[in-house]
């Protein structure tokens, strides 16, 4: 009996070890391309011609980074700064307006509020191509083409459906008694929203902000159609410029890619908890 028991334990342990090895094997397989990008970024071009995975010779250099950073036609340093100038305000504006709207939709329990809210949610699915031509023409007429103000407003608007839906979902979890107590004491809705609801919602606001920042930073299509002067191009627009038509400088391209993705990866690692909650948050079935 005892022998049987222990052999079962051994089999279970072996199976677990096998699964662990398989899981780590797959995980490592998945990051190999990133390893490739890193290896290409820190080595001179002539060592990459026959594959970054050949390590003799191996020369470490930061030259690719400095070339990408100060590239004459598509400087990544300028691109990072420009992307930040767009992503930060577009995130703050969208989260702020989204929080206000989510609260409004939640508390106004009437048919119209529900229909408006559902309409906003439906827009979540809309492809940006559907608005591209009139946006381009309209912003050109308003002199907001090739301007960050125009791009920020458009980004804020397109982020709103998801943010509003997510925050409205979150607000339903905040006990309404908290608010009612303040209302009985004579506090206005505006006061209760800013002083009571928002402070307890900070984690959810962080989730929404992390995701919106990521989307805006990673966006390519809107920037492509709305921003065109070389000094104003965002970092995502500069990456394709670094890739030649016939000859690809993988070292330069890899260094630029690493610099461009470092910001969203940093945001993800810092706000990981909020980020993942944001990702799954809307899906909390009640």
């Amino acid at each position, binding site marked *: 009996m005892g022998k049987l028991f222990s052999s079962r334990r051994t089999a279970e342990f072996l199976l677990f070890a096998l699964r*662990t090895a398989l*899981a*780590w094997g*797959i995980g490592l397989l*998945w*990051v190999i*391309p990133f390893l490739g*990008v890193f290896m*290409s970024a820190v080595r001179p071009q002539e060592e990459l011609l026959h*594959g*970054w995975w050949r390590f003799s010779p191996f020369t470490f250099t930061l030259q690719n980074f400095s070339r990408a950073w100060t590239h004459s036609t598509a400087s990544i340093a300028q691109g990072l700064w420009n992307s930040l100038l767009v992503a930060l305000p577009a995130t703050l504006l969208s989260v702020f307006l989204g929080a206000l*709207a989510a*609260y*409004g*939709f*939640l508390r*106004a329990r*009437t048919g*119209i*509020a529900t229909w*408006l809210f*559902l309409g906003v*949610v*439906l*827009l*979540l*699915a*809309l*492809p940006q*191509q*559907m*608005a*591209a*031509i*009139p*946006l381009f023409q*309209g912003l050109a007429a308003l002199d907001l083409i090739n301007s960050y103000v125009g791009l920020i*407003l458009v980004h804020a*608007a397109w982020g*709103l*459906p998801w943010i509003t839906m997510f925050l*409205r*979902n979150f607000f339903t979890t905040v006990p309404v008694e908290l608010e009612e107590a303040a209302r009985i004491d004579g506090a206005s*809705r505006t006061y209760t929203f800013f002083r009571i609801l928002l402070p307890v919602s900070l984690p959810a606001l962080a989730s929404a902000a992390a995701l919106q920042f990521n989307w805006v930073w*990673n966006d*390519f299509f809107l920037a*492509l*159609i709305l921003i065109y002067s070389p000094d104003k191009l965002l970092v995502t627009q500069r*990456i*394709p410029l670094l*890739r030649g038509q016939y000859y*690809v400088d993988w070292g330069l*391209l890899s260094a630029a890619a690493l610099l*461009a*993705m470092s910001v*969203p990866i940093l945001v993800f690692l810092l706000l990981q908890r909020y980020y*993942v909650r944001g990702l*799954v948050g809307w*899906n909390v*079935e009640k």
Partner: protein
Amino acid sequence: MSVVIRRGFARKPPDGFKTGVGQRGSLLPRPFIPRLSPEQEPLWFAVPALLLIFVAVVVPSVSTLLLAFQGPNHEFVGLANFRDVLQDPETLNLSRFPGHSPPWGALVHNALWILIHLPASVGLGLLLALLFQDIPGNQILRVFIYLGMILPMVIGGVLIRFLFDENAGIVNGALELLGRSDLVRTWTAYPETALFALILGSVWLWVGFPLVLFSSGLTTIPRELYEAADIDGAGTWAKFRHITWPGLAPVTSVVVAMTVLWELKIFDIVYVATQGGPGNASLVLALEMYFAAFRALDYPHASALATILALLALLVGIRFVRTAKNA
């Protein structure tokens, strides 16, 4: 929208509106401030967001819809633009499908993207979520796989191009190692392989999304269910079939909807890796629309394309409206 707000006139003035301008009996003219009933009054909070959405999303989208029914001089042409789009071999090239190599038309390419990428990425995401469940270091593994989702898809496109490069790409390095040097080439540069290389690469990038959602879905299934099943002597498959799968159903539905939306809207990856080429062999709807609108400046054609794309996406979007309605 003004119609919406004016519909409910206040039966009783809301707080803070008791004196001054516009009140009954006041000598000053009543300013145009629509008053809402107390139940509707919180809607004011949504007005700034609704205005911005109206101006930057709704109005341009409706304009595109109208443009899709107009000719170059804004004359009404009925469904002619849609007919032209669907007869254009860039959109649909069924004479080549499936006997010849791509191009088969952007619509077919998007459909293939869904047909291959959806089961592959969602299935793999589910398998990995189950596999990673109690593995030491599973948090790190999830971040590894999710990396592809955090980076800009422009870079995703560069990475795919890099993976399949003839000399610098590791896929070809691996093929050489396996003794298949006959297959070594820049996969994204040939019409037979470009589309499939991109789809394969996009599976690699996207799997993190289903993985993370399924992983968190798994944590919501009560442990007691599995314990009870153990007592009943249920096997691994029976437990998956009767507990895990139904327990994950809401998450699965979200994952599938989001994934299909992503596949329909795919743009950046193709733009950077192949520009839809070679010879339109990897063209997709969103990219075809971009070329029509901003390279050929053919607004009617581009608007019809955008409308077709939007229609397909909104069909999927209804799923989110249903969830939101029940929430």
